[in-house]
C-alpha cells in the first residue's frame, strides 16, 4: 500500500520543503568515472549539509572484484578530490561510509540480481530504508536494456510499500529510432513517473535561473517575442578537446553530445510559454511544445541551416593542441564533427521568423556557455549622427563560467557633446551571492529521491529532440562530405560559421 505524503507540519517555515525518505541508491557501473567524480562526491556533500535522510545507503554494483572496504577507501579519495564541501569531515564521512556497500555482479547475470534483491531486503530491515529504491544506470548505454530487463524479471521494478525509481544517464539513444526503442523497453518495466532521464545542465543554478528570471519578473514577458527580439544566440563552447574519449565521441559527435540534449534544453527554456503551475509535467509540457514547434528542414535544405566543423592542430591558451584525428581512439580519417552551428526557427505565434542561432564545439578559444537575446533596434535612430554605430540591446545569460545576467544598453558619455556608448548592467552570482552554488548532481539526486521530475527529461521530450536532430543527421548524410578538419584548435570554429550568420546581416557575439 502506498502511503500518501501529507505535509509535515514541522516543515512549515523551514527553507527546505522536505528531505527525502530513507532510501537505497543502487548504482550500476559504480567503478566508473561518473561515480568517482560526480555521484559519490555529490552524495557526500549532501550528507555534510544534512540533506540526506537518516539510513541512506548506496549499493554500488560493478563487475570488478573491489569489495566494500576497498570501495569505501576509493570513495574517500574521490571525495577528497572532487567534493564541493571540503575539507572532508572524518565524523560525517565515517557515518556516510557506513552506508556504502559494494556488490560485485555482472549486468547480464541473473544470479547477481537475486543477490541484489536479497541485499536490498536486508538493508531495508536493518537500516530502515523503507523499501525505497533508486536505481542509477551509470554504465555505457549498451547495457541499459539488459539491466532494465533483469530488474523487471526479478521484481525490482516496484516496491510495496515504498517506491522504486530509475535514473538513466545520457545519451538516451543514438538516434530517434534507438531512443524510441529504449523508451519502449523502459516503459515495459517502469511507469513514466518512475523514470528520471538526467541532463545535468538542468541541475545548474544558472539554468534554473532562466525560469526564475523570466517568470518571477514582470518586465520581460511583454518583450519576450518576435515584436521585440531580433534573434537569439546560444553558445556552448569548450576549450578542451575530447580528453581521450575517442571511443565515445566517434559514435556521438557534437550533435549528439551537446545539441540533442543540453542545447535544445536551453532553447526550450528560453522559448517556452509560462507553465500553468510550477509542477514537473506542467513545465515539461511547455518545453515539449517548443520542441514540436521547431521547424523540420527538408533533408536537402539542411546544409543551408547548419555548419559542421572538425578541429585540426592549433594552439589554445598558449599550448599546442593536436587535431581531433590525432586523438586517442579516433580514426585518422574520421568525419565526425566536433563543431556544429545551427539556425533553428520556432514556428509559433511568439517566435515566428526569429532565428535561434546555436553553436557548440570543442577546442574553441574559451570555455563558455551563454544565451544572448538580441533585441530589435529602435524604430527610429535619433542619435545616429552622434554615434559611430549604435548597438542593439542585448540581454545575455551566462551559464558558465562567471555566472550571471547582463543587459547591454546605450548611455550618454558625460561631456558637452551627445556621445553615446554601450554599457553593461550586470548581475553576477559571484558578487551578489558569495556562496558557491551546489553542484548540479547534488540538486538532481536530491530531486530524484524526492520524486520531483521537473529537472529531468520526459519521454516525449527526448523523442521530440531526437526528431529534430535526426532530420539534421539525415540531411548531412545526403550532403557532400565536408572537408575536415576545417578549423584549427583555438579559434571560434570554421570560417563557414561566420559566413553562415553574416549572410543574415548578423554576427556571432564576441565572447
Amino acid at each position, binding site marked *: 500500500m502506498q*502511503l*500518501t*505524503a*501529507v505535509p*509535515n*507540519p*514541522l*516543515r*512549515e*517555515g*523551514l*527553507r*527546505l*520543503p*522536505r*528531505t*527525502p*525518505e*530513507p532510501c537505497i541508491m543502487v548504482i550500476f557501473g559504480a567503478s566508473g568515472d561518473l561515480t568517482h567524480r560526480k555521484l559519490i562526491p555529490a552524495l557526500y556533500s549532501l*550528507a*555534510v*549539509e*544534512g*540533506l540526506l*535522510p*537518516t*539510513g541512506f545507503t548506496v549499493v554500488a554494483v560493478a563487475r570488478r572484484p573491489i569489495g566494500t572496504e576497498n570501495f569505501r577507501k576509493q570513495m574517500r579519495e574521490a571525495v577528497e578530490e572532487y567534493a564541493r564541501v571540503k575539507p572532508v*569531515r572524518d*565524523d*560525517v564521512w*565515517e*557515518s*556516510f561510509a557506513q552506508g556504502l556497500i559494494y556488490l560485485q555482479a555482472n549486468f547480464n547475470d541473473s544470479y547477481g540480481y537475486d543477490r541484489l534483491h536479497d541485499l536490498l531486503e536486508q538493508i531495508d*530491515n*536493518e*537500516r*530502515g530504508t*523503507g523499501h525505497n529504491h533508486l536505481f542509477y544506470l551509470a554504465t555505457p548505454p549498451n547495457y541499459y536494456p539488459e539491466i532494465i530487463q533483469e530488474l523487471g524479471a526479478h521484481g525490482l521494478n516496484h516496491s510495496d*510499500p515504498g517506491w522504486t525509481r530509475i535514473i538513466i544517464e545520457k545519451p538516451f539513444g543514438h538516434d530517434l529510432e534507438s531512443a524510441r526503442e529504449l523508451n519502449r523497453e523502459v516503459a515495459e518495466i517502469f511507469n513514466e513517473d518512475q523514470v528520471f532521464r538526467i541532463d545535468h545542465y538542468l541541475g545548474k543554478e544558472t539554468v*534554473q535561473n532562466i525560469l526564475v528570471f523570466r517568470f518571477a519578473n514582470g518586465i520581460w514577458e511583454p518583450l519576450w517575442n518576435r515584436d521585440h527580439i531580433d534573434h537569439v544566440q546560444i553558445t556552448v563552447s569548450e576549450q578542451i578537446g575530447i580528453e581521450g574519449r575517442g571511443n565515445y565521441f566517434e559514435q556521438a559527435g557534437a550533435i549528439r553530445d551537446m545539441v540533442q540534449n543540453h542545447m535544445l534544453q536551453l532553447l526550450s527554456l528560453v522559448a517556452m510559454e509560462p507553465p500553468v503551475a*510550477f509542477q514537473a509535467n506542467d513545465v515539461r509540457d511547455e518545453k515539449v511544445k517548443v520542441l514540436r514547434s521547431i521547424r523540420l528542414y527538408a533533408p536537402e535544405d539542411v546544409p543551408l541551416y547548419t555548419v559542421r566543423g572538425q578541429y585540426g592542430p592549433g594552439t589554445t591558451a598558449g599550448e599546442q593542441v593536436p587535431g581531433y584525428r590525432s586523438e586517442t581512439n579516433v580514426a585518422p580519417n574520421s568525419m565526425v564533427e566536433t563543431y556544429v552551428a545551427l539556425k533553428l526557427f520556432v514556428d509559433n505565434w511568439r517566435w515566428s521568423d526569429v532565428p535561434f542561432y546555436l553553436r557548440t564545439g570543442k577546442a574553441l578559444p574559451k570555455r563558455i556557455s551563454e544565451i544572448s537575446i538580441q533585441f530589435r533596434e529602435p524604430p527610429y535612430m535619433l542619435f545616429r549622427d552622434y554615434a559611430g554605430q549604435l548597438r542593439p540591446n542585448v540581454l545575455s545569460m551566462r551559464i558558465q*563560467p*562567471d555566472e550571471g545576467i547582463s543587459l547591454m544598453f546605450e548611455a550618454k558619455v558625460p561631456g558637452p557633446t551627445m556621445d553615446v556608448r554601450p554599457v553593461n548592467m550586470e548581475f*553576477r552570482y*559571484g*558578487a*551578489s*551571492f*558569495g*556562496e*558557491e552554488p*551546489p553542484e548540479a548532481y*547534488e*540538486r538532481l539526486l*536530491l*530531486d530524484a529521491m*524526492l520524486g*520531483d521530475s*521537473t*529537472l529531468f527529461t520526459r519521454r516525449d521530450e527526448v523523442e521530440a529532440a531526437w526528431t529534430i536532430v535526426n532530420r539534421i543527421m539525415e540531411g548531412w548524410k545526403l550532403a557532400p562530405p565536408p572537408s575536415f578538419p576545417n578549423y584549427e584548435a583555438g579559434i571560434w570554429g570554421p570560417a563557414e560559421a561566420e559566413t553562415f550568420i553574416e549572410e543574415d546581416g548578423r554576427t556571432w557575439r564576441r565572447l
Partner: protein
Amino acid sequence: MTNNQPLDLQPNPLPEKPEPDSHDELGALVSGLPQAIAVQDIEGELRRLWKSTASAGQPVMRACVLNLLIYTRSREEAERAGEIAIRLMRRHPNRAIILQTDPAEPTGTPDQLESLVTISCLRPRPDSPTVCCEQITIKASGAGVEQLSSSVLPLLVTDVPVVLWWPGDPPFGKSLYRGLVSVADYLVIDSSSFADPLVEIAQLAARTQRRYALCDLNWTRLNPWRALTAQFFDAPSSQVHLSNIQQVNVQYGKGEQPNPIQAMLIIGWLGSRLGWQLGKAPATGNLANQSLIMRGPNRQNIIVNLRAVEPLDAIPGSIVELHLITPNAEFSITQTPGESSAHVMAQLKDGATMQRVVPLRLLSEAELLDMQLAIRGRDPIYEQALTLGAQLITL
C-alpha cells in the same frame, strides 16, 4: 523543485576576516581609516571616498541591499559590530550605521554627535570583482543620544530594508528605542542575552504584531535543530508518530542565571505546529529544571521536561539534547561533547535503529545574522512559537 540552499542546517562558514584588497593605492582608501566628520557632512564625505576609489583605477562594485543599523554601548561593541557588518558583506552588502553610545568615551563636544565614515571592500572569491560597502559610525553622549534617531533617518539608503540590530537588552519603551524602531523593517535581538528572561520574553511576545518583523538570533540558533527534528517525520510512515508524542525531554546548558528561553522556544515550536496547548496542571520544579504537562489535539497529555545541564559550549541556554518519545518510537538529537556535530537517532520498537552523525556547530553571531538576513518578511512560525513559549516560561 526543491530549494537546495541548506540555510536551515549549517551555513557555509563566513570568512574569519575578509580578504583585504591587495591594490596598494586602493587599500589606503578602503582599509578602514576613519574620518571624523560632522553628521551633516557624512553623505558628502562618502561621495568623496567613492570618487577616490574610482580614480585609483581599480574597478570596484558598490553594493547595498539593506541598511544595517546597529546600536552599541561601547567602543569595543562598536568595533565588533563593524567587523560583523563587513563579514556580512559577502551575502548581504549593506550600508552599516553603527550607533555608539558610550558614557566612558564622551564626544569631544558634550551633547553633540561625531561620526566616522569608511568604505570597506572585499573580494568574495578570487575570481569575483571587489565589492565595497559603506560604514558610518555615529558616536553620541549626553543629550546627543536622543538625537540619534533623527540623525539616522537621512542616512538610510532608499528602496532597501532597514534592519535594526540591538544586541543585549532592548530598552522596550524608552524613547531612543522607540525612535529607532520606528524606521526599522526588521528588529533583530538575541533573547539568549536577556538579563531578565521572564520579564523580557513577555515583553517580546507582546510585540509580535508590530509593523516591523521580529527576529531573534536565539530562534535562528534553533534552525538546525528544527530541520533535524522535522526530518524524522518526512517519510509518510513516520508521520503517524507525530500525533502520538507523549513525552519531550529537552536539556540545555546552564549558566550563572538560568535562561531557558531557547528550550521554551523549541517546545513552543513543537506545540504551535502540532496543536498543543498548556495543560491545567501547574509546572513543577524551578525555572532551571521543570516539568509541565501540555495537551494535544486528541486530548492526550504530553509531558515536557526541561533540564539545565553543564553547557558544552560558551552560550548558556543552548539546547544540547532533544528527545521525543512515542509509544512505538523514540527520536533524539544529541550534541556530541567536544565536537561540532550531533548524533541523530530514530529508534523504532520492533524495528530498525537509524542513526547518523551530522555537523552541528555553534554558530557565531555573524553567521546567525547572515542566516536571519536571508529571510524576507515576518516569520509567523517564530511568532507563534514565541507566543506559546512565553506562556510556558511564565508559568
